[in-house]
Structures are given as C-alpha cells and as structure tokens.
C-alpha cells in the first residue's frame, strides 16, 4: 500500500519524539493501544498554569500511519487550550495525512491518545 507524502515525511522525520520527565507536575500522559494491530502510543503534554499546551512529545510503536498520526498531533496541540485540543477529530488527522480506509484506526488511536492525556489532566486538576 502506498503511503501519502505527508505520512512519509512524518515517518522519516518524526516531530517531537521522546519523553518528558513524568515526575514533572505539568506533564500528563495518555497511553493507548489498538488490539487489531498491536500498536502502542504514548502522548505526553506539558500544560501551563493557564491551561495552554506548551509542548508535546510522543512515542509510538506501530506502522507508518500510526507514527505519522501521533507526530502530527504533537504539532497540532502545541499552543492550543485543552478544549481546542480535545476538539481534534480523527477525521481531521486522517484527512491531513490522506490515510486510506484501512489505516483510519491509526488516526482514531491518536485522537484517543489526546483524550487520554486530557482525562489525566482533568483528574489531576480535580485533586
């Protein structure tokens, strides 16, 4: 199957790969996995006191589309508020990367990773 140019670009030059110190109180982590293909995705957000996402990092084990989806998402969420980041839809990711139907689940995984990280942020705030 042919990957789109954007997928190849993110796959060959992934943005923001790595991890933040998980003991940093401003860092939240979203961990998600897709049983169908065994892909695992970790998305970390560094969120300021004003609720703006200052920085993002990811680590993904999976196919090119999964890596590209998470790489793209780290670029998109930077500078956004929690609400704006939560509004990112898998269809936006799939459209931007021109993902074929069989790879839509990779974009769903990336959307769910943002949601999982934001859930952790909200439960931290509630404490």
């Amino acid at each position, binding site marked *: 199957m042919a990957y789109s140019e954007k997928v190849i670009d993110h796959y060959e030059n992934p943005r923001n790969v790595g991890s933040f110190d998980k003991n940093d109180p401003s860092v939240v982590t979203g961990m*998600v*996995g897709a*049983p169908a293909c*065994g892909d*695992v995705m970790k998305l970390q957000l560094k969120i300021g006191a004003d609720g703006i996402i200052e920085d993002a990092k990811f680590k993904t084990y999976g196919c090119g589309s999964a890596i590209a989806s998470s790489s793209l998402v780290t670029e998109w969420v930077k500078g956004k508020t929690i609400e704006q980041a939560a509004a990112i839809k898998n269809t936006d990711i799939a459209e931007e990367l021109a993902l074929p139907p069989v790879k839509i689940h990779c974009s769903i995984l990336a959307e769910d990773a943002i949601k999982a990280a934001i859930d952790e942020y909200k439960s931290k705030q509630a404490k």
Partner: protein
Amino acid sequence: MNYFELFKFSPAFDIDTAVLAERYRELQRAVHPDKFANDTEQQRLLSVQRTAQVNDGYQTLKDPIRRAEHMLSLRGIDLSHETTTVKDTAFLMQQMEWREALEDIRDSADPQESIDELYDSFAAYRTKLTKLLTAQLSSGSEEDALLAADQVRKLKFMAKLHDELTRIEDALLD
C-alpha cells in the same frame, strides 16, 4: 456457523487439538469435491462450500485467539472487526517496556540470552492471560464475557510482540 458443533465439540475454550486435527481430516474426506465428481452441479458446489467451511472452522478452532473470538461472537460480541482503543495504562506501560526491550536486543552483550528471556516473559504473561480467559469463557455471565474480550485484546498485543521477537531472532541468525 457454529464451528464447535461442526467439529462435534462442546463449546469450551479448552479443546484437545489432536482430536481437532483428527476430526478435521474426517470432515475433509467426507466433504471433498472429488467424492462428488459424478454428482449434480449443485451437489458439487455444495461440496466446495462445505470444504471451505471445514477449512475455516479448523483454522478458527486451532488458533486460541481466533477460537476465543469465535466463542465470543457466538455470544454476540464481535472482536474481529472492532477498532476499540485499549486504555489500560499499566498494561500499555508493560507493552512499551517490552517494545523497548526488543529494540535493545541488537545492542545487548548476548542477544540470544535477551531473546530467550523475552520469550519466557511473554510466555509467562500469555499463560496468565489464558488462565483468566479460560475461566471467564466458561462462566455464562455477560460480565465475564466482556472481561474475556479484554483478555483476547491483550493476547493480540502479545501475539504481535511474539511475531516481532521471532522476526528479530530470524534477522540475527541470517
């Protein structure tokens, strides 16, 4: 199609695979298209269809993950086409660690030792999951069926890890 009925098994996860292979050969012989070479067109088509069913049934029951999926699908839980995301953080952290360990094999002092250790860890974890799965599938409750579905999802991640490890081991031997 209930493959347990086709192969005359009671619908339990624990099946004797030697008996399965034996019944597969019997069924294969009984429905083989060659036996119907002189029959009507319809009869021959039916035999081709039944042969496909027998083959698919055998492949399904032989593989523990597919067998469990089949049992759950008979209870209305479809796992083979789902795009559900797993969010069990502790489980996923462990998956990440194992994926990192796979990456480190090539640079380790004794790659074969690392590989063997990982095979053992994977096998131990799979045994644990399979025990839970067997118990949860044997219970009739809906709640246990949903828990069983979670074990199947986890076993799929383990199958992926196992494939990756085999691939790395093959590459090292080359």
